[in-house]
């Protein structure tokens, strides 16, 4: 059921496309992002970063930097909490973050922070940091995932592996996941054709255009304020407090406007450092990362090495599937190996399926979430093999996917049974789309892929207060990363029955609301949306109560209709509708302020699926790929503001195009990152891309009052595979490594020619 009428299903506001409330701020330069804040007496911080991939720190001599004119404070690891302890796996995540924020005994990757300076100007801070002398003992390093698992690989950190890892693995293998059901060997024996292949993907960066930036102020009384660009300011509050030995509530964190995150701003890097410097200097300290620091020191996604085996009958039925997924997550545990494994075969209803994931450490920056962490790589491997099976058996790729598609009641490859899901609907819409039936030109190839992501709920608090004039202000705790204020205001308008323009949505600071989990897991429109609806319902209940008091009738004899309290039936009495603004006009005298709340952990996030169609053209002489047509079909559950849903679909596809064709972390033999800038780490430009067509499918999520599913992440799950299938078709050879950059394509074509 493709979206054809925004105002279907009885909604008045939901499904319309009004201007975003913060639009004017963002087109005039008025919006304040991370680096746009200043404070009186402010100092500027700069951070010293390791030029080595792996080294023991013998001594850090800060005396020359401290002596420099204008320098007010220098910090190293000893200025951070000493009661945070190392534990295995993710049990010691606070220690992992601390160790990443400021190195202890060793530097673990090129870019690892190990000292910081605060000075009266940014130029002085930058000069002073060069005066910090460090005595290192260089150690062997490893940056490749397969090599990091080999017997003789350098050990990043003994004891980092948790109990999930079976005996016999290298200490760099720190977590292990295995799941599935049925008997894959028996399944493979029933197949007419079994294909097994291996795939690799390189680490890519989230590539947000706004570098990390913050302004911290912390006194020796333990009270502080922090302004930062983040996807989750309550997490920043909690983590900074832990790393600096503060009481959490004494640190107030305000989220700036955020210039992109995509998962990369879900943790802290410079924030605890600015606060540590501020505490020492007793002045506010601002730190802004350079682009090179962003690439070298903040989370890229994992690189992977994967083996996938799938058996298929001549009619397209998949009899069994298995996969091994090795994820390199930098010098700390946390690569999303379990997500990669769990998402790999989720689109398909399989009797026999088994998946294994390895979380592997190497001398690279600590990976951070990147849009559906782990899922796009799995889809690349799995959907490539399915594509080869379809070709070998002469089957249509959409028909095969429809034949095996997961549906309501399917036991998912990762365990539970699916509730209402929209995979079949996306495949049907893709099949019916003009794109799928348009003939290709010479030299072009077409690729199809499905993709899956879980989506998430999480701790959420929202409050909604009415003003005397009948307008409303919503306070939400999830930073607006792509237009979510508009969605919140639409949902509140729907419940309250007042115009969208009469609602202002503010991202509240940590002192204003209860804990809100990070804006991640595609959770904002789902969870903060649900919370907004429930807070508005709470307000409506209170408004009805005031009307009941005024009319002197029972509360349950009043209902809310189109922005007014009305008697619930003929027996309730004969009263004129009482509009919201007439109730709020004298609310002070009728019981006081009217405020609605929601504080809970919604757990009804609905999983989502997408199907993408891509046409690619490969220049056989240069290896350059051009994407000539792209269509995204995805289940949104319910599109609250369809234009912004389309935007998420297009943005996910564009990032996928970059990942598939050009983006990669390139390390030299010395373990140093060789392309820490936008010139050499090439994200897609306007001139690289075609228009990106979108189809919004709506299969309601039963866990949300309006049926919303998250939309931000699923859009990046199919592109790597869909583009690989298109490029492989156009090149005439299966591409098994990402990115499919021109040199790799030229090499593949040469190997084909050379036989």
């Amino acid at each position, binding site marked *: 059921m493709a979206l054809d009428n925004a105002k279907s299903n009885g909604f008045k506001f939901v499904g319309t496309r009004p201007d975003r409330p913060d639009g004017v701020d963002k087109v005039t330069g008025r919006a304040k992002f991370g680096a746009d804040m200043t404070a009186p007496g402010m100092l500027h911080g700069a951070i010293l970063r390791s030029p080595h991939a792996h080294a023991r720190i013998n001594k850090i001599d800060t005396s020359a930097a401290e002596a420099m004119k204008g320098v007010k404070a220098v910090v190293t690891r000893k200025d951070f909490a000493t009661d945070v302890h190392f534990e295995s796996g993710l049990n010691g995540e606070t220690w992992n973050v601390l160790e990443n924020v400021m190195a202890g005994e060793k530097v673990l990757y090129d870019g690892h922070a190990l000292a910081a300076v605060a000075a009266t100007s940014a130029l002085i801070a930058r000069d002073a940091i060069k005066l910090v002398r460090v005595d290192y003992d260089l150690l062997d390093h490893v940056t490749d995932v397969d090599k990091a698992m080999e017997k003789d690989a350098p050990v990043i950190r003994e004891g980092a592996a948790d109990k999930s890892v079976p005996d016999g693995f290298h200490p760099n293998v720190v977590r292990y996941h295995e799941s599935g059901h049925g008997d894959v060997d028996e399944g493979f024996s029933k197949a007419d054709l079994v294909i097994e292949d291996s795939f690799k993907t390189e680490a890519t960066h989230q590539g947000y255009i706004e570098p990390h930036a913050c302004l911290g102020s912390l006194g020796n009384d333990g009270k502080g304020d922090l302004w930062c660009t983040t996807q989750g300011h309550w997490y920043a509050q909690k983590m900074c407090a832990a790393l600096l030995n503060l009481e959490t509530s004494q640190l107030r964190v305000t989220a700036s406007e955020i210039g992109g995150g995509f998962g990369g701003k879900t943790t802290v890097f410079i924030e605890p450092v600015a606060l540590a410097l501020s505490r020492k200097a007793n002045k506010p300290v601002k730190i802004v990362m350079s682009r090179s620091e962003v690439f070298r020191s903040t989370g890229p996604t994992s690189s992977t090495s994967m083996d996938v085996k799938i058996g298929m009958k001549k009619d397209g039925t998949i009899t069994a599937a298995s996969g091994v997924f090795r994820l390199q997550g930098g010098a700390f545990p946390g690569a999303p190996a379990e997500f990669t494994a769990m998402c790999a075969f989720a689109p398909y209803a399989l009797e026999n399926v088994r998946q294994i994931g390895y979380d592997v450490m190497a001398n690279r920056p600590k990976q951070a979430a990147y849009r559906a962490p782990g899922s796009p790589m799995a889809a690349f491997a799995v959907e490539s093999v399915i594509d080869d099976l379809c070709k070998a058996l002469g089957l249509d790729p959409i028909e095969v996917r429809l034949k095996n598609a997961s549906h309501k009641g399917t036991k998912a490859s990762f365990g539970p049974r699916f509730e209402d899901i929209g995979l079949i609907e996306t495949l049907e819409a893709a099949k019916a789309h003009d794109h799928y039936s348009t003939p290709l030109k010479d030299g072009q190839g077409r690729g199809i892929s499905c993709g899956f992501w879980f989506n998430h709920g999480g701790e959420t608090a929202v409050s909604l207060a009415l003003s005397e004039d009948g307008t409303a202000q919503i306070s939400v705790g999830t930073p607006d990363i792509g237009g979510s204020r508009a969605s919140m205001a639409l949902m509140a308008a729907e419940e309250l029955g007042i115009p969208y323009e009469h609602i202002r949505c503010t991202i509240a600071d940590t002192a204003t609301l209860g804990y809100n989990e990070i804006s991640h897991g595609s959770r904002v429109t789902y969870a903060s949306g649900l919370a907004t609806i429930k807070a508005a319902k709470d307000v409506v209940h209170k408004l009805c109560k005031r009307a009941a008091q005024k009319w002197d009738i029972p509360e349950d004899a009043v209902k809310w209709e189109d922005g007014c309290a009305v008697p619930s039936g003929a027996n309730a009495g004969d009263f004129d509708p009482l509009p919201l603004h007439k109730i709020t006009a004298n609310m002070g005298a009728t019981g006081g302020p009217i405020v609605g709340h929601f504080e809970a952990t919604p757990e009804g996030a609905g999983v989502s699926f997408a199907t993408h169609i891509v046409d690619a053209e490969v220049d056989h002489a240069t290896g350059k790929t051009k994407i000539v047509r792209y269509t995204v079909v995805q289940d949104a559950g319910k599109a609250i503001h369809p234009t912004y849903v389309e935007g998420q679909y297009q943005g996910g596809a564009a990032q996928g195009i970059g990942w598939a064709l050009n983006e990669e972390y390139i390390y030299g033999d010395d373990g140093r990152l060789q392309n820490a800038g936008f010139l050499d780490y090439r994200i897609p430009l306007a*001139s690289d891309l075609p228009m990106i067509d979108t189809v919004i499918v709506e299969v309601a999520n039963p866990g949300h009052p309006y049926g919303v599913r998250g939309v931000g992440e699923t859009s990046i799950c199919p592109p790597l595979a869909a583009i690989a299938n298109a490029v492989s078709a156009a090149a005439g050879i299966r591409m098994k490594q990402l990115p499919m950059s021109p040199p790799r394509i030229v090499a593949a074509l040469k190997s084909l020619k050379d036989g």
Partner: protein
Amino acid sequence: MNNIHVRTKVNGDEVDFLCDPRETLLDCLRDKLHLTGSKEGCGTGDCGACSVVLEGRLVCACLVLGVEVEGQTVDTVEGIAQGQDLHPLQEKFIKYAALQCGICTPGILMATKNLLERNPNPTETEVRYWLAGNLCRCTGYDKIIRAIMDTAADMREAG
């Protein structure tokens, strides 16, 4: 301290500031004149978030030194709207949802305004190549291009 006194005209106003010879025009706009609409995404001229117009020419403010603008004219995103009236490009960017996070928007608006002043009737390909120096990570450029093509058509009609 070897600060240099620079006199310049920004968005039509005569202004002056003291700056270190190493500071870029972007540093000076943001830190000395408090015009934080121009953004630093890379500092190396690769992302275009700091695009401003210097003497009629589109430049990355991170690649120009503050001292270079002595006696020259600089236009920034803060000067696009006329009083309360938004420029048609600003209106259309909001209407088309041509921004998600908004960090690249000031640079893209400056670049596009400069394009339309040179070429009121660009093809889609011309717009895409003109904007090849302005990175956007959120949108995939689709809605940006549509907003620009529609604005250009409106402005041609309005003469």
